[in-house]
């Protein structure tokens, strides 16, 4: 007590006033978050590190903000595994994941009843490929929903509508010249072609390792690089084939063609928000807010939104806002 008195005397009148002011501010700061939590829960929205992810991340954020939530954006976090870990550890509450990625890359499971990595190329039965794209869709969604719930305590909400499958892209002239429209057309000529891909695609089981096995492909060389640079490298003829996303706006913008996955190697990658169960328990309304997007965005729409950011240089937030306003959701 005496020590405190002495200190107070030392501070002088101004010092004491300052001390009182500081304590008041500190008290207010301590109280503030509590009062805020009563108004609306804070939701942290994450995304992976490419355009489409930032756009859909903004869609989730804007809808939540419109519903009165405080949103903290953690967009452009990193690759699949990093964002997934952030969700599991509770550093983010939600992001948009793709069913096929959840199944193969996160859960390390196989696609139900389709020729998958490990199967030998079976040219004689192309019909086996069709179920992967249509029939397998619901099955994959079912599996990831169940497994995410039991393994991580994470819920898959309703799919947004589009299927952002992996695909291979080439320059139109070269594809025409070589007569290539589907991936199995590459088999004979791949030895003369250079392959460029993201580092992630080079190691994912549903990336190059599985693809080469299923189709029996062997490229002359394969180089790993930043996602954005793959398109540029293809455009400037430094590589001939790249890994791409079906809904990427740069495919039409650069005059590229995508190759048909005729053996049905790539699983469906339907996009849907994944949310921590804890948040949904705490505030069930979050589900309704985010499910407003269910089935709203088809492949073409997503490609358009991506192109507005990638080719026309608009901000992801503006593109997302304009879309939601157009849909009457804001």
């Amino acid at each position, binding site marked *: 007590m005496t020590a405190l008195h002495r200190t107070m005397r030392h501070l002088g009148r101004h010092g004491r006033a300052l001390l009182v002011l500081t304590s008041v501010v500190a008290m207010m700061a301590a109280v503030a978050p509590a009062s805020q939590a009563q108004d609306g829960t804070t939701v942290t929205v994450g995304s992976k590190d490419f355009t489409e992810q930032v756009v859909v991340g903004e869609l989730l954020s804007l809808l939540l903000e419109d519903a009165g939530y405080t949103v903290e954006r953690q967009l452009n976090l990193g690759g699949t595994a990093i964002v997934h870990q952030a969700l599991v550890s509770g550093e983010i509450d939600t992001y948009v994941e793709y069913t096929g990625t959840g199944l193969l890359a996160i859960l390390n499971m196989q696609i139900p009843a389709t020729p998958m990595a490990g199967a030998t190329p079976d040219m004689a039965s192309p019909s086996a490929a069709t179920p992967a794209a249509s029939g397998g869709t619901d099955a994959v969604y079912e599996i990831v929903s169940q497994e995410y719930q039991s393994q991580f305590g994470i819920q898959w909400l309703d799919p947004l509508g589009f299927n952002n499958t992996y695909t291979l892209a080439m320059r139109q002239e070269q594809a025409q010249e070589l007569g290539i429209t589907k991936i199995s057309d590459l088999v004979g000529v791949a030895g003369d072609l250079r392959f460029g891909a993201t580092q992630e695609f080079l190691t994912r089981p549903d990336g190059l390792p599985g693809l080469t096995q299923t189709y029996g492909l062997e490229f002359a060389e394969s180089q790993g*690089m930043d996602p954005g640079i793959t398109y540029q490298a293809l455009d400037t003829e430094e590589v001939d084939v790249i890994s791409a996303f079906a809904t990427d706006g740069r495919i039409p913008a650069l005059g590229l063609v995508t190759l048909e996955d005729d053996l049905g190697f790539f699983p469906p990658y339907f996009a849907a928000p994944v949310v921590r169960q804890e948040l949904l328990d705490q505030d069930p309304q979050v589900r309704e807010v985010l499910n407003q997007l269910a089935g709203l965005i088809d492949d073409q729409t997503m490609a358009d939104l991506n192109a507005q950011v990638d080719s026309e240089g608009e901000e992801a937030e503006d593109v997302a806002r304009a879309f939601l306003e157009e849909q009457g959701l804001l």
Partner: protein
Amino acid sequence: MRIGGGDPLEFIDYIRENQDVFLRLLSEHVQLTLLSVLIGIAIALPLAVLASRIDLLAKPLTWVAAIGQTVPSLAVLALMLPFLGIGFRPSLFALTIRAILPIFLNAYVGIRSTDRAVVDAAQGMGTNGAQLLLMVELPLATPVIFAGIQTATVQNIGLATLAAYIGGGGLGDWILQGLAMVDYPVLLAGAVPVALLAITAEVTMGGVRRLVVPEGIR
């Protein structure tokens, strides 16, 4: 994908199982570092001599070298993309820019800080400009010049991992793949050899420095 999983020491197995790839990545990494430092020496040393002879040039040259050092290497890679494309060449370019400043600065300071009395004595003995440089100033500056080269080498061993962003290869490939998949063994299979390379370079160059430094100033 083993999310964050796996015994970290598994990286040794990973290297063993992928020995061919490892040797290719390692050789790309070493080539990028060695070539960038050699080209860096070829550019920076003459510039340092020039700067030590023509006072007016010293400041501007230092600035230019400093800018090269401050511009992030990733930005250099992106800026050079339209001109140099992807792969080895642009990676080498970005690394060379980074090697220039430490070598230039050390060489310039080394030459300039030669003891005035020694220079006077040499001139009194009738040495001309070239003799003064080659027989007095450069030999006396060797330890400092060599320290600059050592700094550039160790720095570029680390920076060469950036080549993985533009298809330039090197051990950065595994680091980025490990990061993308949060697969620690893959990440470490890239990162540990880079660290070992840096330490090896530091130690061996320290030994070489002792050999090249003239007897008189050892």
